[in-house]
């Protein structure tokens, strides 16, 4: 984010009036992809590849015209930018996002044969592209309007709620919804498992990381060895590390009954958690160590000169000043863990990755989506949440 803060404010531009080429480009991309790519696809069942339909076939001429007009309105407003116009564009984008599920409903109503219960509506490339570009527009608008990072979260949560409602009530023939309804208990279970694995791994590595970083500050030799080891571990690809842990743990589980009683076996949570913690330790320890070391010597000397004890200096000066960087470490660790936990599904740890790999195995793409989309959303939520927390805890407010 610091990259963006370093930019000259738009007021310093050479000409005071100057079209917003970014939004112009983005609206052009949306217009082109809406007309060129397929909007939806219809398949008779979950395995067969569907037939694709373009915008006119899917939502008819009135729908196509409405969508095109919305995109052209964005372009027109972006040609003569002003704060007011940016707000208007924000409105149009929200409207478009809200209209998107209704487009699917219309398409589903027209194209899906109601007499075939297995028939399903797939979301096409045009839909995904437009959705992605609309999010880019939101990012651009947030920067132009100088909104805080809460706004997009708020807007997207509201729109997400509307989509969820539409999906639950009227979009029963959407492939993604069908996949979900077929295994909703499994889905919630997987989400819970995923979050549990991430939380345990991050929680343990926060504690271990803090301890290790404090030990490193005391024993310089440990620092070199520990960083070398953690760097080494981080370099090993996740799949390989999971694999390397499988064999010894399987052996232990089979040969040491006490460990087997504790649930240790080759497949399952034990190797997953060990690998997750091993990966999480490096970013955690690195950030904690840097955070604690970075506190300015002058400040600490001043604290000493004022007569603070060692403990007081640590807990009242060094630690609070280090906290934001430390939390940055937690954020990086947690985001990384969300992704790695998905890989852990391969060795039977459960979680949302299960759907991805099962879906890939069965060539059922909607099931892959059912795993991948929540993982993506989870990663973004963790990132936003912990980022905001770090901001809030920065001494003297936001930077």
């Amino acid at each position, binding site marked *: 984010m610091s990259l963006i803060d370093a930019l000259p404010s738009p*007021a*310093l*531009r050479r000409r*005071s009036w100057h079209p917003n080429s970014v939004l112009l480009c983005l609206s052009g991309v949306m217009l082109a992809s809406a007309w060129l790519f397929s909007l939806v696809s219809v398949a008779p069942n979950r395995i067969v590849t569907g037939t694709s339909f373009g915008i006119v076939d899917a939502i008819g001429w009135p729908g196509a015209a409405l969508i095109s007009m919305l995109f052209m309105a964005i372009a027109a407003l972006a040609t003569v930018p002003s704060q007011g116009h940016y707000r208007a564009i924000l409105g149009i984008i929200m409207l478009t996002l809200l209209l998107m599920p209704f487009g699917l409903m219309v398409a589903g109503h027209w194209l899906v044969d109601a007499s075939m219960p297995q028939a399903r509506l797939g979301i096409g490339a045009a839909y995904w592209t437009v959705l992605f570009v609309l999010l880019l527009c939101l990012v651009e608008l947030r920067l132009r309007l100088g909104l805080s990072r809460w706004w997009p979260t708020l807007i997207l949560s509201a729109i997400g709620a509307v989509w969820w409602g539409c999906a639950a009530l009227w979009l029963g023939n959407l492939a993604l919804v069908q996949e979900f309804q077929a295994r909703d208990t499994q889905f919630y279970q997987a989400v819970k498992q995923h979050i549990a694995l991430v939380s345990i791994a991050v929680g343990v590595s926060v504690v271990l990381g803090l301890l290790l970083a404090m030990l490193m500050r005391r024993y310089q030799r440990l620092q070199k060895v520990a960083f070398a080891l953690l760097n080494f571990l981080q370099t090993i690809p996740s799949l390989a590390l999971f694999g390397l842990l499988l064999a010894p743990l399987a052996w232990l589980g089979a040969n040491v009954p006490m460990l087997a009683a504790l649930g240790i076996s080759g497949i399952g949570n034990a190797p997953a958690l060990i690998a997750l913690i091993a990966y999480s330790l490096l970013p955690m320890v690195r950030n904690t160590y840097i955070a604690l070391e970075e506190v300015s010597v002058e400040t600490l000397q001043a604290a000493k000169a004022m007569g603070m004890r060692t403990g007081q200096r640590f807990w009242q000066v060094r630690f609070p000043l280090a906290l934001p960087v430390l939390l940055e470490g937690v954020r990086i660790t947690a985001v990384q863990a969300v992704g790695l936990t998905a890989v852990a599904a391969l060795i039977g740890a459960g979680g949302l990755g299960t759907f991805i790999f099962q879906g890939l195995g069965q060539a059922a793409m909607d099931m892959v989506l059912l795993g991948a989309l929540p993982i993506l959303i989870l990663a973004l939520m963790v990132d936003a949440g912990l980022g905001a927390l770090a901001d809030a805890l920065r001494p003297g407010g936001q930077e």
Partner: protein
Amino acid sequence: MIELSHVSKRFGDETAVDDITLRVAKGKFCALVGTSGCGKSTTLRMINRLIEHSSGDIILDGQSIEQYDPVKLRRRIGYVIQSTGLFPHWNVARNIGLVPRLLKWPATEITARVEELMGVLGLPVGEFAHKYPHQLSGGQAQRVGVARALAADPDILLMDEPFGALDPITREKLQDELAKLQSRLHKTVVFVTHDMDEALRLADHLVVMRDGRIVQQGSPLALLQQPADPFVDSLLGGLERGLKQAALTRVKDHMTSLGPTLPAQSRIPTDFSLRQALSMMLRDHCDRLTVVDQNDMPIGELSLRRIVKEAQLDKVSQRDA
């Protein structure tokens, strides 16, 4: 020669430089002085088109700068900035040879020129040529900065607070060397500083700026004798103005031939400033000094009464003019 007429620069609604008219004759040293944010750096940067001016004309040797290709224009104007702007990944020799290389001089000529300049600026080639900027002290880095600006022998030199970040002793030393260099090379120099003493010491022509406008311009002596308003007066040191003026005057301009009275005990060389003479009188509790030549032979005398009286005369003659 550099001529700015009615030059303004606006950033959006903000006017950074407001209707400036200024003329720097060939071979003269012009200092732009003012508090930070007064538009002096902007004015400087408009001359080599790092910033394009919004209105007015900037003429260089009879031709508007808009008619020059900016890149070619910059290659014939030397430029020195406070933080030196030396390229950290190039050694000293390569940094100095930058503009000649851009101008595609033959390699042997570049080497010769670099070595010549390092000699002029007191940087022994053997010791410094292969050092990197981070291995230099502030003063050494600034010498390299000046050498780099002089490399292609430009007629014009722009200097943006070049000595601002140096400690007082190094700064004074470099000021002296710059003054000596200028007396030899006679470049047309525009020099931006917020340090009035530095400006008084180096400049032929002093320009005081405030809020993007020129408040007063003229020779240092003229400004000291007749500041246009309280702002210029305070910049020039208020009560200290008299001493600053004395610092610009040489002993030899105020001495009288040896009188019939006994020569005074304290002796002062002719090329010392009047300020040093006054200080010596205070130190030695006397109101007369014997002026001596290079061989320490008495050639005249200087009295407090005369200094005071002539300072007044200067003021009157200034007003009449």
